[in-house]
């Protein structure tokens, strides 16, 4: 008996490896096998790869169920299919699902929003034929928007704005600064209210610069010590110039001591006053900057939107923003009452995405449709992309409060099916003990407490050997910490790969910049590593040479690029290497014409073999193929300029689908993936990270509300002085620390059986706000007597290993199955006759070379219309003696003697006349054949007394004035007519005459 339909609303809080995709596929199959049509089930996830994986998993599980009784039972156990189904039922289900494959709605949210935007173009205010922009186009549009903003404002205003943006009042290159500031704040300003920038209150104080300078005049030295008088001068300078940082710096003393000596009473009295004054100056500065930001960003954003409308180019975030606004303002209704929802990775949902999904979620809950939400707040690593895990943690409460009859069940998935117990225990050690860490900052402490509040220890479902190690890696005089880590990670990966070639190994890092370093080290020791998540392809010399070549061709003044090509191994691109400047310029002009004519893709394809001859490494060949692919993608864009192309190649990141077992990627890119071994070489970053690059901070009053507070962030000193700003800064630090913990959690839990962590020696400074401190604290590693456990020269000190680590299990793999690449042989042999013969019209004959003037002249519509009319009229004329016409123009033509003579009936004989007769004929000339297709204007055929055709004359009418050059060309046409007629009348070439009847002459 089939399971009854049981719509339910569930939130599954699923720790890493507990089977999110598995659960989601169960939920999907449950709905499908119980009669829901695929277009009534929408499953969303965050990456295209994950979407493909879910789809694949649906089929895979069903197919396994057909072939394997245990798997069939598993499907039933997890209520994925009705309990009474047999293999045949599942088989039928596979076919049914396959037949509705076009209706299956499993996609990323971006893809879903893209579809929504296409369907609701009008309501969203999108222009006709809009499309998604490329990254380099986004940057160009923003730059243009800022340029236009500058142009629209008065010079005085712009100077005033630019002067007040940074510490320097007259920067040289402010466009870049505005660009980076706008880019950094675009997300904040796109979701705020009108008053957001007014969040700082003025600070009123009686302290003025005059007052302070008065007090400083003749003030005692801060302490009685040589050189202390300069302190007074510095303070005077700071107050006079209103330098907030300096005032703050010179007023801060712990316990009123300076160089461990008590400071003078005058200073004890003065410092709070200076601090007050500094605060008032800082507050005024921030308020002024807020005012500028409010106007600047809002105007630039409007201008950007206008440009996007004009160019019809929109980014994913624009689309999301437009839809969110339209949903909020009820311009569009996306709530489908018949829809079951399956939402994956919900912890990464952003507020804007939530606003779009919320009506649908409400509808599904209220209509008692299925709502299956999976996520893990511990894996919320997309805060930088506005992901907010509080949407997941508060989901249940929200549903109860905001939906009619909404009763969402929340449960957790606890069994980990991915990792060995050793890996999981190591993870538990780190996070479970983290509250015992005494961090330097309050924000880190708060983040740790919040993050670990609901932390539950993992439960390994599989009994597999595991190993967790922590190494200390020391920098040297010549090798800095980053490079030392990169070398160590590469060495370990190489070793593990050698020991167990079939096992997957991932080196996971926090930042893209580290990828290049490690990739370099891996290659030095001859380990091929695939990357994932996108890299620029400009790490190959072949690509760089190709780019220089294109630059030199488009910009001959770029002699540097030309030199690059000329001094490269590439000498088969042309013989231009020894060309003079003038020859090169001419050559470049020809190449430019070719590129503009056929596009970058086709052009590079013609030359890719030359490049591959010079750059034959697998890496270069691979990159060249990717260059080609990008070139064709670029050709679809409106830009045609080489520097745009170069920029496009530099900025576009491509995924590398290499099948190597060693993978190198960021932790973000590793989300959703698993590897037999994971190496983590970047564990010494600060938990809070560098927030000094932040130029503005924001805060929402509630999780889903727009930013109600936005504030410029000139420096951390300003935050020290302004309480409102300090609060915002603190919030940011807490969320940064929390995200850093999530990132570490994701990194650790990607490992199936082995994890290798690399940290520098413990810091003596007492800093505890680092990831490495969190690790050391958790695993309680030994602090002395390091021992070398590897026999080669890796110079790695093992500081800790999990007590249950099985160091030997890794090397036991010897079933290395290599799938050889099939040998490529040509499936082609020598060609036969072409399948489709060339088809020509007589008018094309003799047309070898013609001038632009010929082409532009031929299309005189009036002349063509006149010609057609005359031809049509003459079709009625068999013999001129029997023909009359009302057309005065034709009458004039027919009155001419040379015309009359050609159209007159011959005095004697049997003649047949063809008029405007279509023909097609197969002309064989030597080894080649072609189809000749056209229309005879007039053919006069002479028959003998037996009625046999013995001769013929082809008459071709020509209107307009014919010159000698044209006559030569028309003769070639007549020759073609003659060939066709010879065939059709079975006459020899001498039996046919041809005549050009010039009607206007």
């Amino acid at each position, binding site marked *: 008996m089939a399971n009854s339909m049981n719509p339910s609303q569930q939130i599954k809080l699923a720790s890493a490896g507990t089977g999110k995709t598995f659960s989601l596929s169960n939920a999907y199959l449950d709905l499908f096998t119980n009669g829901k049509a695929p277009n009534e089930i929408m499953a969303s996830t965050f990456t295209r790869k994950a979407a*493909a994986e879910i789809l*694949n998993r649906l089929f895979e599980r069903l197919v396994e169920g*057909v072939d394997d009784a245990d798997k069939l039972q598993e499907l039933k156990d997890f209520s994925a299919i009705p309990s009474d189904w047999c293999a045949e039922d599942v*088989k039928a289900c*596979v076919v049914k699902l396959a*037949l*509705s*494959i076009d209706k299956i709605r499993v996609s990323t949210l971006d893809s879903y929003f893209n579809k929504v935007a296409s369907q609701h173009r009008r309501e969203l205010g999108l*222009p006709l*034929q809009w499309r998604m922009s490329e990254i380099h186009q986004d940057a160009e549009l923003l730059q243009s928007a800022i340029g236009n903003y500058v142009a629209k*404002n008065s*010079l005085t205003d712009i100077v005033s704005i630019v002067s007040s943006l940074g510490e320097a009042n*007259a*920067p*040289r*290159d*402010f466009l870049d600064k505005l660009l980076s500031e706008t880019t950094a704040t675009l997300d904040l300003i796109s979701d705020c209210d009108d008053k957001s920038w007014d969040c700082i209150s003025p600070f009123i104080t009686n302290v003025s610069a005059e007052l302070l300078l008065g007090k400083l005049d003749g003030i005692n030295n801060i302490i009685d010590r040589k050189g202390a008088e300069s302190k007074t001068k510095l303070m005077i300078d700071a107050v006079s110039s209103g330098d907030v940082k300096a005032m703050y710096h010179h007023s801060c003393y712990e316990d009123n001591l300076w160089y461990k000596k008590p400071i003078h009473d005058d200073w004890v009295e003065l410092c709070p006053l200076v601090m007050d004054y500094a605060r008032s100056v800082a507050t005024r500065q921030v308020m002024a900057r807020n005012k500028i930001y409010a106007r600047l960003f809002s105007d630039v954003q409007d201008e950007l939107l206008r440009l996007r409308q004009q160019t019809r180019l929109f980014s994913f975030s624009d689309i999301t923003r437009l839809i969110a606004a339209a949903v909020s303002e009820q311009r569009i209704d996306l709530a489908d009452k018949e829809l079951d929802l399956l939402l994956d990775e919900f912890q990464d949902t952003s507020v804007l995405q939530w606003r779009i999904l919320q009506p649908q979620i409400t509808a599904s809950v209220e209509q008692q449709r299925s709502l299956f939400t999976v996520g893990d707040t511990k894996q919320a690593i997309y805060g930088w992309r506005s992901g907010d895990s509080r949407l997941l943690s508060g989901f249940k409460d929200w549903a109860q409060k905001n939906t009619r009859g909404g009763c969402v069940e929340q449960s957790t998935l606890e069994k980990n099916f991915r990792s060995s117990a050793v890996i999981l225990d190591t993870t538990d050690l780190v996070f479970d003990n983290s509250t015992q860490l005494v961090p330097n900052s309050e924000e880190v402490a708060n983040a740790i407490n919040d993050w670990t509040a609901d932390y539950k220890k993992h439960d390994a479902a599989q009994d597999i050997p595991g190993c967790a190690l922590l190494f200390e890696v020391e920098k040297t005089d010549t090798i800095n910490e980053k490079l030392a880590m990169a070398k160590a990670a590469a060495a370990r990966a190489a070793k593990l790969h050698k020991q167990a070639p079939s096992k997957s190994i991932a080196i996971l890092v926090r930042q893209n910049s580290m990828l290049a370093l490690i990739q370099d080290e891996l*290659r030095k020791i001859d380990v091929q590593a695939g990357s994932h998540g996108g890299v620029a392809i400009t790490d190959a*010399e072949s690509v*760089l040479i190709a780019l*220089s070549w294109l630059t030199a061709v488009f*910009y001959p*003044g*770029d002699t*540097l690029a030309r030199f690059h090509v000329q*001094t490269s191994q590439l000498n088969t691109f042309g013989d231009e290497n020894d060309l003079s*400047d003038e020859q090169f*310029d001419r050559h*470049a*002009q020809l190449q*430019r*014409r070719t590129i*503009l*004519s*056929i596009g970058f893709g086709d052009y590079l394809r013609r030359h890719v073999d030359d490049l591959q001859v010079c750059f034959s490494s697998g*890496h270069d060949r691979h990159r060249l193929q990717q260059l*080609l692919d990008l070139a*064709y993608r670029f050709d679809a864009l409106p830009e045609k300029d080489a*520097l745009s192309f*170069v920029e496009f190649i530099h900025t576009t990141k491509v*995924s590398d689908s290499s*099948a190597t077992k060693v993978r190198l990627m960021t932790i973000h890119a590793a989300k959703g993936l698993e590897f037999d071994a994971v190496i983590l070489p970047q564990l010494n970053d600060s938990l809070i990270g560098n927030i000094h690059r932040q130029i503005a901070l924001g805060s929402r009053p509630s999780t889903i509300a727009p930013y109600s507070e936005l504030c410029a962030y000139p420096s951390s000193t300003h935050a020290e002085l302004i309480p409102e700003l300090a609060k915002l800064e603190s919030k940011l630090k807490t969320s940064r620390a929390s995200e850093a913990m999530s990132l570490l959690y994701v990194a650790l839990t990607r490992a199936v059986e082995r994890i290798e962590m690399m940290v520098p020696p413990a810091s003596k400074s007492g800093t505890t706000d680092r990831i490495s401190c969190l690790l050391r604290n958790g695993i309680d590693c030994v602090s002395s007597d390091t021992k070398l456990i590897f026999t080669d020269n890796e110079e790695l000190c093992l500081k800790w290993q999990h007590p249950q680590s099985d160091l030997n299990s890794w090397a036991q793999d010897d079933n290395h199955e290599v*799938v050889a690449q099939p040998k*490529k042989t*040509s*499936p*082609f042999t020598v060609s036969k*006759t072409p*399948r*489709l013969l060339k088809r020509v019209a007589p008018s094309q004959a003799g*047309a*070898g*070379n013609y*001038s*632009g003037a010929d*082409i*532009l002249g031929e*299309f005189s519509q009036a002349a063509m219309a006149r010609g057609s009319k005359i031809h049509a009229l003459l079709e009625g004329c068999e013999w001129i003696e029997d023909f009359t016409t009302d057309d005065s123009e034709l009458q004039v033509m027919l009155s001419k003697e040379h015309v009359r003579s050609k159209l007159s009936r011959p005095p004697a004989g049997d003649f047949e006349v063809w008029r405007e007769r279509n*023909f097609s004929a197969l002309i064989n000339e030597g080894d080649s054949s072609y*189809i000749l297709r056209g229309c005879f204007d007039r053919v006069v055929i002479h028959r003998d007394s037996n009625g046999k055709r013995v001769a013929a004359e082809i008459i071709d009418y020509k209107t307009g004035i014919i010159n000698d050059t044209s006559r030569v060309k028309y003769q070639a046409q007549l020759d073609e007519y003659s060939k066709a007629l010879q065939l059709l009348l079975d006459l020899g070439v001498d039996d046919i005459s041809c005549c050009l009847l010039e009607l206007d002459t």
Partner: protein
Amino acid sequence: MSNISYISSQDPIIKGLTGDILKRNTAAELDSYIFVSSSSRSNRLLEQELLLEVENRGLWSTFQAPQYATLGSLPHQILDIATDKLASAAACQLAWVNALSNCLPAQALLHFGVDIKSRSETLLLAQQLSKFFSQLAAEQIDCCSLAENNVLSENEQQKFALLAQIHDDYVAFLSAASLQDKDRARQIALDNNNIALNANAKIVVLCVPEMSKFQRKLLSLCGSQVEFVQLQFDHLTNAFDDFACVDCDVFTESGNTLLHDASLSFAANPQEMVESALLSLGINGNKHSPEDVTFSLLEKQCAPFLSQALGGFDVDVRTAVGGDLEGSLPVLLLKQLKAYIDIPSFDNGAALLVHPDLLPNPKLKAELDRYRQEEYPQLLPEMYLAKLPEVVNVKTNGLNAATAATRNFLLEVYGEIDINPGQNEESHRRAKGLEMIASILSEVQHLDDSLSNNPKLGFNFARSLDFILHQCRGKKLTQRYNEQSVECLDWLELNLDPAPEMVILGFNDNYVPGQTANSMFIDSELAQRLGLYSDEHRLARDSYILQSLAAVRKNAGGHLHLICGRTQNDGSPLLPSRLLFMCSDHDAYANAAEFSTEPLPPVKAAERPASERVLPRNSNNEAPLKVSVTAINNYLKSPYSFYLSNHLRLRSVDVNGDELNPMVYGNFAHSVMQNFGNSEVRNSVDAREIANYLRNESQRLFELRFASPSAVIRAQVELLKTRFFDFSAKQAARAADGWKIISSERKLPPGCKLFDSKFDISGIIDRIDQRGDEICLIDYKTPNGKSRYTKNALFKGDLFTDLQLPLYFFLSNNFKDLKSSKVSLAYALLTADSKDCGFTSLKFDDKHKLIAEAQCREIFAAIESKNWFVLGDSPFASATEEALRGDSLLGVTTHCDGK
């Protein structure tokens, strides 16, 4: 009507058809035939086969060529329509634009979501309207009836009423120009039964799977003169309707496709799809003539991989179309012309000037590159402006006049150029592009005044060009004939293709069956409600085509290779075509099972180990005879950059900046300061007087140099004036302190040598001040911050990091008037931060002098011995220089000498 004859799908279709035709007719009778198929390519195949048959049978003397048509062109071959009254595409679009000018913008925005105040939006909307009414005409639906259709919502009714009104206006505009819309003319002819078909004419409709209602009505009127020929599928009964079109119910019934004869592969991505296809073709060592293989690239991303892979086997690919008209050189030229007319900036002017078809002198391009890099002007200088065609100054009003001017412009550029379309691909595309533009210009130029002279449209030259360019959109260039190559066809062209081996790359849903293109006025849901062409029809059609492809291959002893992709290049997932599952349950399951199985990725070939790389250099390197002080200083930072920039004098072009680059900015500031140093106020102690001078001088030079600068550059210079203002106070204080400017921008005399250098040293000392017997050599700097210019700035450790001022110190001996025992060095800083502006005296004592001398001697020797191939911190790094230095290369060790 049901005059249908079936041919067995077991026979070779085209050959079978032609044989059958000739069996039933004499060759002479063929001129009464009109053969109708789905595509003109099918017609070509049919014609070719027919002629070969005529040749084989020796029937030339009686052969009379039949006519060929597609369903689209048939109405004009058999309906009596006055073709000279038919409106051209340009006329239609202009009539739509005129009609839209009568429409209220608010209404258009409400119902179409289009801002018709925007010219480009209106042109696009006109295009959509044209498409929509063609669709209605094909489906025999009157827009007014939709406006009154109670099934539709009030809003929808209003929308269709508005559309009907716009259509009425459109017709009226065409009528006023004595023109008729193509669809309307057809409809009127059909309604009046104006069939111009000889009584003995026969229309043979070949294997056409679908027809519109209009086409059905038309063929109905031809009655028994129409004959349908269709393929017969043994396993399907009652598969076709009275017009021999596919029966939707039959062809969308699962289980109806026969795929067991096709080979099916799943591949990870486009590249592997191509590899998989070639493997499938060559399975069991099979070899094929390229002419026996047809590819269809439903997944367009396969194209470069296929071209490259086949190129490796010396086989070319010929595609169905030769590219977009919009991408052809003549259209690019017009686009550039339009850009320059819209914004006559340096960039637009230069881009127009250097269009490869226009550029009179190839050297000009390099000249412009250099000019731009060094001067960054905003307008094309006069000397270059003169080289632009006259047309850029055309101030015409009216579309006709502008079109004539455009034609003249093209004549000026292309008139004398010899073009041979047969020469190569580029020439072919250029010729075809020009032909098509010529045709468009001809159409536009002859538009009736009533269409083009509507004052609301306001056609000036720029708008006219815009309209002309819009006519180029979406048009395709014809393909250059290229025999001996593998042919790539579109899905609809495959139907009658006889190639025994056929490969479909991208047999995925959304490609086949694809989605039906609904207009922006009727979405798919409404289309279904109105009974219009729907996804079901598309599925049925494609199911039919797949059947025929499989059957023909089977009969020809060949194979149908279906390659399904799993993802696109960027990882976007692809779904298999649902046609794969419309077979027997057994086969459908097998296909689904295969889809669910991820193949093991092949192990890639091992990489070549990391290579060693020598810094690129010229083979011929002579030691320099003259080196500037700046260059020597650059050598100190990076010998290799010195080699590139100062010795070889190589330059990189930066066209991306919208601001003055640091070099031009610095030069501009130097010019102002140089003039100050030579002015009467140079030794003034009045800060205000100095500030006024600098402000006025910078404004004067700015106006002199930049004719029409961008707002950003204006702001940059305005901010520079702030720096001058801040500097003035410091300058006045210095003057008050007794320092007098005695020299400004003083050049070293020719032939200066130092420390036995073999080369001459050149240079300019920015400024020399004097106070009593003290001399101060000053260098102007315009950095953002002062950190690099502190009093100890020249030093790091025990070595100089900057030798510019020390070199001037040593070289100042060459000036007789500067003999002094007290020579000091200083920077005059024009910094971004006002508090940092001013003078920095540099620490430079006897110890330093000795170190500097030793370092200079060392550098001179290195330069003389051509020791240039050492990397350092490049002061000029550009992306190309980084590439030359190997900065971004992974796994490559860059050596100075290759050892």
